[in-house]
């Protein structure tokens, strides 16, 4: 892998234009409530088919970075987080903006995002090759145990009920099973429906769950209007003293963001919550958090952008996405017949270097665009949903058609849009569903390959130290929320 090649490729007009376009679209969609960066990635996926794979990766990585970053604009100025990962930013960003320092609040968030992203890029570049080398010694059982751990981790850490999270992930797996079984060539779970012979199109399901369900959820807020924005960007550039003052907070939050990003399946929202809580717990003035305190904004924004680099590490080295949004990037690579995993570094080094170079460049472009245009982007909030939402659905229809030209895929997409909307209303996390959908074929293939090699024996799962440790972590993560709830209810009962 030659990183210089990646940077040089990015400096040519076409790829650089895609980088700018992707970052800008990501920021805009990230800033708008209702549409998330994940939905943008899902929506863009079919349109990258005809692009060379490297260009598709550049566009989508830039969108990923832009999407995570854009949420802070409306979170800070209007207390409306465009992305779930920007929710924590509202706690201090909005009070600071309302106290007459909107420019400083934005400056803190944008600068923290840039530095968090840049630090995570360092982790991406240094840790990925090592991790890929380690992963080369993984056999089928190790890969299966890793996928299992990813599912349990995302279910346990998605801040809701672990049972609902796991059910969501397993339901995603069930959806991936119909069609021709790759190992035996037999049809399964097609129920006599010819269209199901090829299974549900992953793209149609992802578009439904990420984009259509979001439109449906957003439709009920169609009459929401926003107050006219009266703010300026005075103070958006921070002084060197401010950077020095925040240095430790930035480093700590970046490490948290990268680490949580590396954990399979856990997204940027968790990073910002953990970094914010840690900053508050370690602060000498915790009472200032939530009142417009700079440390709160910096911790949240550093962590959620640091998560992006972290989430890409398991995606490119193990083929396991570090966040739900990264799972769409993974799907994009698979559609271009690029198999992420340890061999990616030797088989498609140009993809790895383009992805890494884009990750860094798009953070720099994001900084410039957001400093220059944050007020303009915030004003896009005034566009009524009545004009945007129908266009998104029509775009999704084209996206679903673009893959195979089958009407069945549109029905699948709309159907899963409704299912995703219902799951969202029942507070069931959708991240595990997407991860389950994408990872199930890998998990099944690896398990069956392992069983063929061991003559049907499952003993290697507990005999090998790596698989055993993955299984133990999965078990702990599954049991821990129940144990925690039990302890809490006992403590509450004791107090009562």
């Amino acid at each position, binding site marked *: 892998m030659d990183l210089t090649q990646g940077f040089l490729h990015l400096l040519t007009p076409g790829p650089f234009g895609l980088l700018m376009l992707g970052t800008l679209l990501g920021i805009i969609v990230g800033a708008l409530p209702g549409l998330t960066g994940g939905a943008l990635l899902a929506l863009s996926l079919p349109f990258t088919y005809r692009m060379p794979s490297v260009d598709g990766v550049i566009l989508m990585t830039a969108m990923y970075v832009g999407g995570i970053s854009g949420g802070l604009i409306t979170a800070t100025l209007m207390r409306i*987080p465009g992305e779930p990962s920007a929710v924590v930013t509202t706690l201090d960003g909005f009070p600071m903006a309302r106290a007459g320092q909107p420019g400083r609040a934005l400056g803190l968030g944008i600068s923290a995002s840039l530095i968090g992203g840049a630090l995570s890029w360092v982790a991406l570049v240094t840790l990925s090759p090592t991790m890929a080398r380690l992963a080369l010694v993984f056999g089928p059982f190790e890969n299966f145990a890793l996928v299992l751990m990813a599912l349990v981790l995302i279910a346990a850490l998605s801040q809701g009920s672990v049972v609902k999270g796991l059910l969501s992930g397993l339901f995603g797996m069930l959806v991936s099973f119909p069609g021709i079984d790759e190992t035996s060539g037999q049809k399964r779970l097609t129920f006599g429906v010819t269209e199901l012979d090829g299974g549900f199109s992953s793209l149609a399901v992802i578009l439904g769950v990420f984009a259509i369900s979001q439109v449906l959820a957003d439709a009920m807020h169609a009459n929401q209007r926003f107050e006219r924005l009266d703010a300026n960007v005075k103070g958006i550039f921070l002084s060197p003293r401010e950077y020095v003052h925040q240095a430790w907070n930035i480093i700590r939050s970046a490490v948290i963001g990268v680490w949580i990003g590396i954990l399979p399946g856990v997204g940027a929202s968790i990073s910002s919550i953990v970094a914010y809580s840690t900053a508050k717990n370690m602060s000498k003035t915790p009472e200032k958090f939530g009142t417009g305190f700079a440390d709160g904004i910096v911790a949240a924004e550093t962590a959620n952008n640091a998560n992006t680099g972290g989430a890409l590490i398991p995606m490119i080295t193990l083929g396991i996405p570090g966040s739900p949004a990264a799972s769409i990037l993974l799907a994009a690579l698979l559609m271009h017949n690029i198999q992420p995993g340890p061999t990616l570094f030797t088989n498609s080094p140009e993809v790895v270097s383009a992805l890494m170079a884009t990750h860094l460049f798009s953070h720099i472009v994001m900084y410039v665009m957001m400093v220059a245009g944050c007020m303009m982007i915030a004003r896009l909030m005034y566009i009524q949903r*009545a004009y945007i939402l129908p266009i998104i659905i029509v775009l999704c229809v084209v996206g679903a058609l673009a893959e195979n030209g089958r009407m069945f895929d549109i029905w699948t997409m709309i159907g899963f849009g409704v299912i995703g909307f219902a799951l969202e209303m029942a507070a069931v996390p959708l991240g595990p569903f997407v991860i389950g959908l994408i990872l199930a074929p890998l998990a099944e293939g690896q398990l069956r390959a392992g069983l063929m090699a061991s003559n049907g024996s499952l003993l290697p799962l507990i005999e090998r130290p790596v698989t055993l440790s993955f299984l133990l972590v999965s078990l702990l993560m599954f049991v821990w929320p129940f144990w925690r709830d039990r302890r809490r209810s006992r403590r509450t009962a004791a107090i009562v």
Partner: protein
Amino acid sequence: MSDQDDSGGMAKRDVVFAVSMIAAAGLTIWGLRNQPKAPYDPVGAAAVPFWTAIIVLALAVLLLARVLLKHSTRGNAISMFTMSEAVDDGYAVRPWLSVHAIVLSFAYTAAIPIAGFMYASIGFMLLLGWLLSDRTPRAIALVVIVALVGAVGLDQGFRTLLIDLP
């Protein structure tokens, strides 16, 4: 809405979710009943979906039991979408608009093979835009413009990109 109402509503949704998962698992197990065994594969094509369905069944029953025993099932769930709790209040949330959007989306899908992508899209964008707008003359005029320009533009644009539209 009081906390009690809210938790009651959530419990009902959890029951519906758990029952749906039981149905999905049951359908999977039923669909696998005649799956032939593969001669050279120790587990066969049915094994992984079958055991996944069994685990889904077990977890759904566990969820149902927790709801019935009034244990917490929600935690602090974070929406993958924008957190509506954090959005400004002061406007009425209209769930029926989502229901209308669902019905219109199905009708739109059904209309595409009959009317063609462009005309079906114009109709869909007009209807959904009208439903979601505040129905002022200006808003309706904009909905019409967006529908016409959007549908014709997307149709022509994607045909140029060689995407085969009905």
